[in-house]
């Protein structure tokens, strides 16, 4: 026999407001149709109800009862977020959840007895989860949706055991049901009161056919409900593809700091919802409604999935600082694409590795500290440019089995300390041979030299054809140069070290003669310098040298033959 639970939040519009703005908690609060004194109240908080304020009163009447009354508007954004949070909370207990009216959800309890010892425990878990998202629910468990809903409407936690439904229904007052109107348009509440019906048990004892004759289809439905005979199945909702929180602000926010304050609370609620589902936050979409009916949308890429609110907020702030909203923000919507946490299996005989969740959080915090593009796994890009690098998400593979340690050696591979971007220096040459180097914190005579090793490439990108056909034709005329270059754009020769420094003269004769005028695309030397550093499309051609200077340092420098400038590429230490 099916068992269905119903979770319901009483005074949902008030609960949603309190959830989005915890300052409302414990206040004498009411939601009015408008803020005018004659406007009626739609909903009141439990505190206001204690004082005798009821929905339907005018604001003036309510204020006469309590001068502390705070009246506000209904917030559809807050209600939508709260309803989604409610569904997320109950979905963390059971996968089969049907959303009902705002603040209400049905849960199929089939199969949960394998995890929980009984229905009371399941209900307690449901209530605990909903409390985690900031609402106080009531719960009912019964054999069908309507009965469970009626049980939840009674407040607290109520489990109707199988076979005792009539016992529960008998004493329930009729106004627990939304009676509606009969087929002839009569008010059913009035009609049933005239018949002397006060409780569902009395209605259940009537003959359905006779009720149908007098009250029509709705009458028959009511009798069936009163007998607990409904068997409407649960229609589960689809899994959420993103998690969203929305807030409508009473006043526009112009500064980023108070905006961050509001977003922090939203992110905390989202992180709570995600963690309940065992998910972590991925990429973030911000949608701001601004004054003047303008909107502002921003995608924030998250380098490493994490539920660390501080790290996520810092990433958002970094993004907004770069390009802030142009006007005061009046509504905020944050959408988060959920990601599944990467599981990891540790091995007793392998070196320990960071726990995936901690690693993701750490990467997210580092990205917030250093900037999103400065953290990850750095590797050399498959490019002809020597300085090209590629940054990927850091995800260390499982550790390989440890082989015997190779004996330590006192011979290692030389590693260069790169200088990025390459720093421009001044090199004095004699017969094309560097003799003295001068630059920032640098100035010494060259005592040993290796090179040049030529590297060029990307000339095939061919931006010159459109930009300056004349210079391109001049380049084409230098056919021997093309013939000598390796067409994959790598260094000359099989190995750079096989190129002779003594061949410099021969190389110079094969290479287009450096000219003080713009070389390939007619751009100025400044623009070509920009291109040299990776932004241009007109290729590069460089002669690399390793120079030992009198100051004791060994440097890798290159001469950009497009701009005829020298650059310090790195140091060996």
């Amino acid at each position, binding site marked *: 026999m099916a068992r269905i639970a119903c979770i319901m939040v009483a005074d949902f519009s008030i609960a949603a407001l309190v959830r989005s703005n915890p300052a409302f908690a414990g206040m004498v609060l009411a939601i009015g149709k408008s803020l005018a004194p004659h406007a009626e109240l739609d909903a009141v908080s439990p505190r206001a109800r204690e004082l005798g304020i009821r929905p339907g009163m005018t604001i003036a009447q309510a204020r006469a009862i309590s001068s502390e009354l705070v009246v506000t508007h209904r917030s559809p954004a807050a209600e939508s977020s709260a309803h989604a949070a409610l569904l997320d909370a109950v979905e963390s207990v059971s996968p089969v959840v049907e959303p009902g009216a705002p603040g209400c959800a049905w849960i199929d309890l089939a199969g949960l007895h394998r995890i929980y010892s009984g229905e009371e425990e399941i209900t307690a878990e449901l209530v605990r989860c909903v409390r985690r998202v900031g609402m106080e629910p009531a719960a009912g468990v019964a054999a069908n949706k309507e009965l469970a809903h009626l049980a939840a409407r009674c407040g607290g936690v109520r489990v109707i055991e199988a076979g005792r439904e009539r016992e529960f229904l008998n004493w329930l007052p009729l106004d627990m049901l939304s009676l509606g109107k009969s087929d002839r348009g009569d008010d059913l509440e009035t009609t049933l009161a005239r018949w002397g019906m006060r409780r569902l048990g009395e209605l259940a004892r009537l003959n359905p056919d006779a009720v149908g004759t007098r009250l029509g289809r709705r009458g028959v439905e009511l009798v069936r409900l009163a007998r607990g005979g409904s068997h409407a199945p649960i229609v589960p909702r689809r899994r959420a593809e993103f998690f969203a929180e929305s807030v409508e602000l009473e006043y526009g926010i112009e500064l980023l700091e108070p905006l961050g304050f509001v977003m922090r609370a939203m992110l905390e609620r989202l992180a709570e919802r995600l963690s309940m589902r065992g998910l972590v936050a991925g990429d973030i979409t911000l949608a701001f409604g601004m004054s003047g009916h303008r909107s502002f949308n921003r995608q924030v890429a998250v380098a490493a999935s994490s539920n660390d609110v501080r790290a996520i907020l810092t990433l958002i702030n970094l993004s907004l600082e770069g390009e802030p909203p142009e006007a005061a923000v009046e509504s905020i919507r944050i959408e988060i694409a959920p990601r599944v946490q990467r599981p990891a299996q540790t091995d007793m005989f392998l070196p320990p590795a960071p726990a995936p969740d901690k690693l993701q959080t750490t990467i997210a915090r580092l990205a917030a500290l250093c900037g999103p593009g400065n953290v990850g796994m*750095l*590797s050399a890009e498959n490019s002809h440019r020597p300085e090209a690098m590629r940054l990927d998400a850091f995800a260390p593979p499982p550790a390989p089995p440890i082989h015997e340690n190779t004996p330590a050696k*006192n*011979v290692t591979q030389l590693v260069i300390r790169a200088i990025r971007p390459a720093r421009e220096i001044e090199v004095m040459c004699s017969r094309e041979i560097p003799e003295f180097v001068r630059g920032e*914190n640098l100035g010494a005579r060259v005592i040993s030299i290796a090179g040049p090793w030529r590297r060029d490439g990307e000339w095939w990108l061919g931006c010159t054809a459109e930009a300056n056909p004349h210079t391109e034709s001049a380049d084409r005329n230098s056919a021997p140069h093309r013939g000598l270059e390796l067409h994959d754009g790598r260094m000359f020769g099989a190995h750079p070290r096989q190129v002779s420094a003594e061949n410099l003269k021969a190389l110079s004769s094969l290479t287009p003669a450096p000219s003080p005028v713009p070389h390939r695309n007619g751009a100025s030397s400044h623009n070509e310098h920009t291109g040299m550093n990776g932004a241009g499309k007109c290729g590069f051609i460089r002669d690399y040298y390793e120079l030992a200077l009198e100051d004791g340092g060994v440097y890798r420098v290159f001469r950009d033959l497009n701009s005829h400038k020298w650059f310090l590429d*790195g140091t*060996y230490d």
Partner: protein
Amino acid sequence: MAASFAAFATRRGEVTAWLDASGAFDPESMAAAGVDLRRMLWASMKTASASRIARAALAVGPHARHQSAIVKAAELVLEAGGFGLVVVDFGEAPRALTYASSLRIARAAERSGAAVIAIAPWRMCGTFAALSLVASRAETSFSRLAPGSPVMFDGLAVDAMVARNKMGGTGRRVRVRALVDPIAVPADVHPQLDRKESPAPISASS
């Protein structure tokens, strides 16, 4: 030497981190040195002084903020746990760490069981370092394969002296050869390098 330590650690399957204060990390030569870059978390601190977190720190001035950001990053990595080696490259002209910062890093390293290598032109961590090595360039090797052939840069010989070691052995020296191509280059290409000295090899465990 730090690259050698990182290569040793990654070969063993350990996860390492390289905090790059000056943007000097060259992945191509690191990979050539045997570092498994898939196991190395790289973070560039070059622009960290401008970040919101660094600005929110108490440190005033860009240099102090930069230093604070590096220390903060090292602490974050060590707090995560599971890293076998954390290399902090402080760049060319850093300020020495304050006692409080050094102590925090030392304690965090102790808790997480990680080795922390600080690369700087001078001592950064004071008495909190378990081992301080002073590396100085001893020789630079250029050679020709034959008369008239091109001059090639072969590498460096670096003298590493133990300036401080809590386990003893202060003052010991070792010569490490850092070569452009340590496998392919024949031994007789480096006649000026003394292969007989430095019996004590340097390994990550030291």
